[in-house]
């Protein structure tokens, strides 16, 4: 079997603070493998059998190599970094376009595609669906488990309904659930990962023109953006006497 897992590197939102103006402070915030992508990889590792190959792919800046390294540590067999200045500013469409072009050219014969449900930074959850539509394969969102009985079946959770869907060769699943405590590699895994080359490919390798990728290949045009704040009614208890103030607050909470 040939499994392909699409992953993204994201800022570790759990350690992103805000400054006094409420702006995200990204400085010093480490980048990590998107947790949903890690779930997707974990699922592929779980079903991987003798002789199966797990390939991981990301489109991103050169630093995204560290997210791929983590995938190798956690059990991926090979890793591709799609990186090119022209890829910058890609929206979901241009991203899916780049990923599908890579897939058609480099791993045309694949059995299953895995994505994380969404990236923790963009939160659009659009890339898996667009990628599936460009590949002309089935797409199965909200997959929580993968079972093999008479072919692969995706177990999907739609909150009010659990479904088991049969998958065809080449179908895509987007994974929404995994371990709460991420796995840790062993030293042996680390050594194996260190000895695996991460293959870097650019626009020319994949065979796409500048107008198909990055900002130029994007359909989304952001004309303006403004911060919106959810308004909550703040009440200031200015009693002077803390005991009185506490009583007042207690009354309101009740």
């Amino acid at each position, binding site marked *: 079997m040939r499994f392909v897992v699409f992953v993204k590197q994201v800022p570790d939102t759990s350690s992103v603070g805000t400054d006094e103006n409420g702006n995200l402070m990204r400085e010093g915030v*480490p980048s990590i493998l998107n947790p949903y992508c890690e779930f997707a990889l974990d699922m592929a590792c779980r079903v991987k059998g003798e002789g199966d190959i797990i390939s991981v792919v990301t489109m991103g800046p050169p630093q995204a190599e560290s997210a791929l390294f983590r995938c190798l540590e956690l059990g991926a067999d090979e890793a591709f970094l799609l990186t090119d200045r022209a890829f910058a500013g890609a929206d979901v469409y241009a991203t899916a376009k780049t990923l599908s072009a890579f897939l058609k050219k480099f791993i045309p014969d694949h059995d299953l595609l895995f994505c994380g449900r969404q990236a923790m930074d963009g939160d659009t959850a659009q890339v898996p669906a667009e990628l599936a539509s460009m590949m002309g394969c089935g797409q199965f969102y909200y997959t929580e488990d993968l079972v093999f009985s008479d072919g692969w079946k995706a177990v999907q959770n739609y909150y009010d309904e659990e479904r088991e869907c049969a998958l065809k060769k080449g179908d895509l699943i987007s994974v929404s659930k995994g371990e709460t405590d991420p796995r*840790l590699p*062993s030293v042996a895994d680390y050594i194996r990962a260190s000895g695996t080359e991460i293959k870097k490919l650019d626009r020319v390798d994949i065979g796409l023109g500048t107008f198909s990728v990055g900002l130029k290949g994007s359909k989304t045009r952001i004309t303006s953006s403004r911060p919106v704040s959810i308004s909550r009614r703040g009440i200031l208890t200015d009693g002077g006497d803390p005991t009185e103030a506490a009583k007042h607050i207690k009354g309101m909470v009740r």
Partner: protein
Amino acid sequence: MASVVRRASSDSPYLRDESKITGDADEIFVPETEEDVVKTVEEHFSEGRPLTISGMRTGMCGGCVPFGGDVLTTERLNKIIGIGKDSNGYYVRLQPAVTVRELNEVLRKRSYSNLQNITEDAVGDLLNEGTDFFYPVDPTELNSSLGGNIAANSSGPRTLKYGPTRNWVRRIRAVLPDGGIIDVKRGDIKADGRLFRFKTDKRELEVPLPSYEYNMNVKNSTGIMARDGMDIVDLFIGSEGMFGVLTEADLYISKWHPLISNIFFFPDNGSAYSFVKDIQKSGMEPEFIEYFDSGSLDLIRAARKRDPKMNQMPDVPEDAGSAVFMDFPIDGALMRKYMEIGELSEANGGSLENSWCGHELRDRERFFGFRHSVPQTIFEYVAGLKGEDPEIHKMGTDMSVPLDNLDRMMDIYSETLERYGLDHVTFGHIGNGHLHVEIILKDMEDLEKAKNAYRELAVKAIELGGSPSAEHGIGKIKREYIELMYGNKGAEEIRRTKEAIDPKWILCPGNMVER
């Protein structure tokens, strides 16, 4: 602004620390400035009223626990002031309640925008450095205050490579018991033999030092430091608040380098210990070596059953009977080290497969959470027992011996505790000859047995050239160790030093020695 004063109710958190002993006090003073501290101390001095200094109360020997009088908490003196540079490198000037975690977070995120230049352009220079910096002393409890760390000369796993807090203090500023201020950096005032002569803004002092030989060959926090011609900064470090309230300090910081954390699992206690000895012989110098015996792993397993989220780590492998935790720099030598470790671990029943490693910041934090969860689990267990019997408190050794005598000491631990019929777990800083042996008390009877066993162990540790209190200090619960180590004479000499600085014994009375 005046200090806020609060009444201490009997369940006030200011009446206890992690030793779980509980004291009593009338009022809690919460100074916001050094002037507030001076005023509070002066008032207490003139009335001869005890004042116990409280940091973040993570101490393990009751040093900040008051027995009468009032409490002064440093909690609002919590600002990082600025950055400076001298021939030894960069240092951070800070108030005492800044915690180890806060300092390291500011350094990691390089959030220096509100910091002063203590020396010309130091902030900008540090920002422009290609590498990150960090404060390397890791007392395991990252929520402890740096003032508390200095007062206790805290150390921890990283002491193997970086030494204790003492090695990182450049300057201190303290309010003495009469309200006088001393502001000294290393080199300013040295003892003349065993006598200090110095001036504060209030008076001239002559302070005699104890005549004992302070053991610097092992990790040691028993008693105040005393050496010929020593620096006065060293008198305050590790003095458990007996001589003054620290209001400011300069702490050096170190260049950070990427590290990889590793935990190797072994079938039983003997195999892990034998692996540790092999590592020490190999000369590969890990940043630290920490040991967990089978009992420690069982504690973690049990705690994770109760609370699966406890330390955010995967489950400990079922067949693991012990573990060794080490950090290595990620550099050109790492793979060669791993190859050697592979052979050494296999020779002792382990393998590179049967291990965990992590180099991303979040993973390394998980490893430290795992390490921390062992003492934490024991604290919680004891806190639970306390409900049944308030007299029960944690009983853990904190003894160090020179590495050459560690074999002998390990045998003594098990032989003695078995003789007393006491359940125990062993973990900690094996690389420094410093293990924590924690007795799992079942009832009051065990507590009595444990006290006797500990005394025996302490005598043995001293005989083997070690210290009965390697890093947790003496405070109020380990005072007998002072006499064990330095005799009656030594205790008397510490009293003399205390008396010279604090004639009315108002600051942290009862720490190390009673009046």
